[in-house]
């Protein structure tokens, strides 16, 4: 094939959709932004896999970075055995997590991988979990080659320490599905057998059909009660032992009474029993439970530092590089860290220029330069070339991972609040028992034969099925609707937690600011090298964060002597340098009229010998809509800011946050955690919004932890909610939606009480029949389900 290089044009890459710059490559009348993309296209074309491009437009991922020796550690048999699930003499099977699986084309390409390399036997993609199960021929392709093949077409599997340490859990949903299956089967058949009775059997057939139908019903209700309904019985029993009245208690009470009465009526031939009500009740309850159990499989809410670190690192021993798993590192080992790699453990810099980005770990904005012999803490990311380090501590004992030794990580979240359902069920159960007893007392006086009937009828008909359904359906729906807006909840109950909060604590770096690109530049007349030196020497002498930033930006060597250095707090600096008068500071300090003073950045103006030179513009890079978000939230919540960074942007932040907000800077991870604890100690219910490892403790300690992420597939610390940073501006709307969902639950609770009143009027009067129960129970459930589903849907439409 012929390659033509074309001059600059605004075309997008056929493979990845990026704009093509001057390096655009044209092949078969299609443009590619880089060689990587072109190679994938050629590979796919040669293998008849061009459907990849017709299923979705520009499905690929830019491949400008080369793979190099990155996967050398996969040749290590120790690591191999941890990754491979099954292996024999011929084939091996394993499961990869592939974060880049994002569209239908991905599934197509991966499942047709065998066409590209004959060593691949079969690939099965699970789109929602973003993983692929691969079977390959170990004699034709090695694990490393397989991973490199995937990486070369843009589907690099992700490996980290926790994947390798953890045991793969089984699907927990299965038992519930079996229970639903059994309950559905029994419910359907009981209905089938009960119907003839409801419509009336003629007298010829009644005497032998009725008892038979009764026995069939009873037989069917046994597995429903004992197997499908067991969770409610066990739940109620466990609750009572802890002296807790949960929703399970009135439910279990109703179920037990129903079951006993069925046995009695059918065996004594005194009635039809309420088998269909029993089975229907359990069936609907289980459906509600299933609906609430949705989880986001591709996201992980329980990650700790282990999933942040790589699984291996290159060690240097007698000038020989070997790849070693991180947990095999020993103190004193010499390790090599390449550009953009993460420092796996506390160590000492031996060689190279270390420029470490700690923003994710400590919240500091700027990379930190480390000198030879200095300690570098684990978790930082090297940003300038290769360095060599000597290991000082093991990863589990490093400074960063100590945070996880805090008690907060040991205990399960019992700080969570009591749910509405639990609160209500207490009163509900007592009211129910009171009504049942007074009905019994009433009939004891007037008609003693009706005591048992009235008493049990009350417990049966008032069984809070609709009540038990309203929460799961409303919360489950809310969770799905929020998920569609990229606000992913760990579980549906988080909705209710969010609705009860009154305090929000924000992290700064990465949470309310965006974390990329340079953020300072000079606007104005061109500065000569000498003028730059003047400004540098002035700013270098100040400890003000803004001056430091400018000095860092100019980064020169200067030994000019300053005279008359004068710093006026809140305004600027005046100094005489080598005969020049230099003014650095705010517009008012320099007596300059500025037409617009944007709130999105801070400007520092420069005058040399009374001549205006221009200004340094420091972009805050705050997230879109931050001001709106804060002003919206400040009406309903008390707001706090905890930043690991210095006070550079304090003045600006004070203009955004309401005056009573606490803005704290230079907070280390433990400070943040303790601050949350203090707030909670003062009876506040706290939402923590954070992003990095430095927030991990605070996120865990808060009643609700929301972790903001630019890329939801990448690492985020353990939390209750993972939110896509793109939608940050909608945060108030999401929080409000949770509150509204609770209102929906209150209303549907009232609705279900209304049905209960109707049913109770039959029950206390002793006229409840199986037909009425069989009609009332499904109707009330369906009304509640319909009401909650529709209203949560309508509220969600209002959200945007």
């Amino acid at each position: 094939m012929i390659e033509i290089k074309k001059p600059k044009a605004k075309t997008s890459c056929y493979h990845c959709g990026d704009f093509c710059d001057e390096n655009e490559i044209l092949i078969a009348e299609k443009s590619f932004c880089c060689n990587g993309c072109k190679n994938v296209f050629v590979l796919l074309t040669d293998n008849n896999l061009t459907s990849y491009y017709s299923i979705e437009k520009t499905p690929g991922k830019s491949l400008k970075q080369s793979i190099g020796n990155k996967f050398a550690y996969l040749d290590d048999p120790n690591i191999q055995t941890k990754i491979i699930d099954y292996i024999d003499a011929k084939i091996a099977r394993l499961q990869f997590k592939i974060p880049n699986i994002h569209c239908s084309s991905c599934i197509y390409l991966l499942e047709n991988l065998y066409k590209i390399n004959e060593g691949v036997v079969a690939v099965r993609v699970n789109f929602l979990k973003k993983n692929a199960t691969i079977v390959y021929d170990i004699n034709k392709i090695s694990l490393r080659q397989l991973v490199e093949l995937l990486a070369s077409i843009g589907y690099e599997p992700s490996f980290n320490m926790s994947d390798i340490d953890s045991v793969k859990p089984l699907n927990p949903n299965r038992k519930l599905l079996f229970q639903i299956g059994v309950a559905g089967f029994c419910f359907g058949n009981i209905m089938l057998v009960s119907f003839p009775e409801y419509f009336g059997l003629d007298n010829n057939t009644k005497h032998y059909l009725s008892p038979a139908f009764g026995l069939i019903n009873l037989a069917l209700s046994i597995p429903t009660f004992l197997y499908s309904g067991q969770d409610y019985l066990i739940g109620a029993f466990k609750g009572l032992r802890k002296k807790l009245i949960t929703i399970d208690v009135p439910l279990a009470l109703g179920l037990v009474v129903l079951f006993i009465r069925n046995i009695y009526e059918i065996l004594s031939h005194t009635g039809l029993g309420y088998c269909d009500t029993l089975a229907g009740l359990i069936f609907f309850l289980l459906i509600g439970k299933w609906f609430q159990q949705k989880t986001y499989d591709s996201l992980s809410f329980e990650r700790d530092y282990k999933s942040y670190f790589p699984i291996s690192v290159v060690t240097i021993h007698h000038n020989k590089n070997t790849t070693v798993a991180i947990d095999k590192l020993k103190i004193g080992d010499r390790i090599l860290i390449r550009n953009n790699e993460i420092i796996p453990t506390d160590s000492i810099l031996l060689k190279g220029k270390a420029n470490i980005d700690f923003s994710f770990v400590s919240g500091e904005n700027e990379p930190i330069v480390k000198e030879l012999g200095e300690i570098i803490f684990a978790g930082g990311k090297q940003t300038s070339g290769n360095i060599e380090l000597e290991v000082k501590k093991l990863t589990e004992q490093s400074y960063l991972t100590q945070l996880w030794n805090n008690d907060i990580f040991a205990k399960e979240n019992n700080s969570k609040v009591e749910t509405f359902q639990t609160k209500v069920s207490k009163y509900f159960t007592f009211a129910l028992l009171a009504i049942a007893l007074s009905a019994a007392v009433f009939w004891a006086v007037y008609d003693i034969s009706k005591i048992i009937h009235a008493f049990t009828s009350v417990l049966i008909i008032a069984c809070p099925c609709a009540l038990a359904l309203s929460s799961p359906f409303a919360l489950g729906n809310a969770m799905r609707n929020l998920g569609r807006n990229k606000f992913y909840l760990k579980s549906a109950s988080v909705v209710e937690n969010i609705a009860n909060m009154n305090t929000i604590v924000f992290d700064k770096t990465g949470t309310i600011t965006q974390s990329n690109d340079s953020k300072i530049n000079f606007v104005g007349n061109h500065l000569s090298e000498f003028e730059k030196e003047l400004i540098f020497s002035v700013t270098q002498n100040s400890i003000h964060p803004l001056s430091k930033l400018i000095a860092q930006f100019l980064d020169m060597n200067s030994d000019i002597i300053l005279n008359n250095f004068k710093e006026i707090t809140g305004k600027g600096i005046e100094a005489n340098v080598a005969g020049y008068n230099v003014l650095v500071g705010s517009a008012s300090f320099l007596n300059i009229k500025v037409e617009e003073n944007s709130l999105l950045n801070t400007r520092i103006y420069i005058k040399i010998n009374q001549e205006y030179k221009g200004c340094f513009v420091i972009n805050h890079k705050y997230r879109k809509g931050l001001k709106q978000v804060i002003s919206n939230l400040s009406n309903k919540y008390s707001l706090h800011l905890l930043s690991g960074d210095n006070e550079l942007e304090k003045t600006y932040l004070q203009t955004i946050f309401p005056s009573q907000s606490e803005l704290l800077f230079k907070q280390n991870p433990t400070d943040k955690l303790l601050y949350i604890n203090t707030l909670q100690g003062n009876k506040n219910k706290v939402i923590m919004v954070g992003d990095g490892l430095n927030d991990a403790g605070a996120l865990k300690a808060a009643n609700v932890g929301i972790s903001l992420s630019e890329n939801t597939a990448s690492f985020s610390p353990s939390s209750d909610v993972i939110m896509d940073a793109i939608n940050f501006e909608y945060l108030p709307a999401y929080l409000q939606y949770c509150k509204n969902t609770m209102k929906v639950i209150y209303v549907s609770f009232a609705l279900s009480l209304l049905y209960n009143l109707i049913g109770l009027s039959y029950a206390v009067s002793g006229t409840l029949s199986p037909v009425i129960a069989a009609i009332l129970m499904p109707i009330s459930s369906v009304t509640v389900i319909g009401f909650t589903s529709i209203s949560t849907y309508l509220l969600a439409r209002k959200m945007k």
Partner: protein
Amino acid sequence: MKIMFVLIGCSFILAFGFLVAFIWMVKSGQIDDDYTPSVRILFDDGTLPEKKEL
């Protein structure tokens, strides 16, 4: 009307068959992924690549 029992017996066997099929389905993991198969079914089974002669 004794024929009723035969009919009920038949319907039970049928329904029980469905229950067993359901449990089998859940056990074999068919409901573990409820999205990917919906995409997979739309792919054409491309023919095996012909060896290109250069």
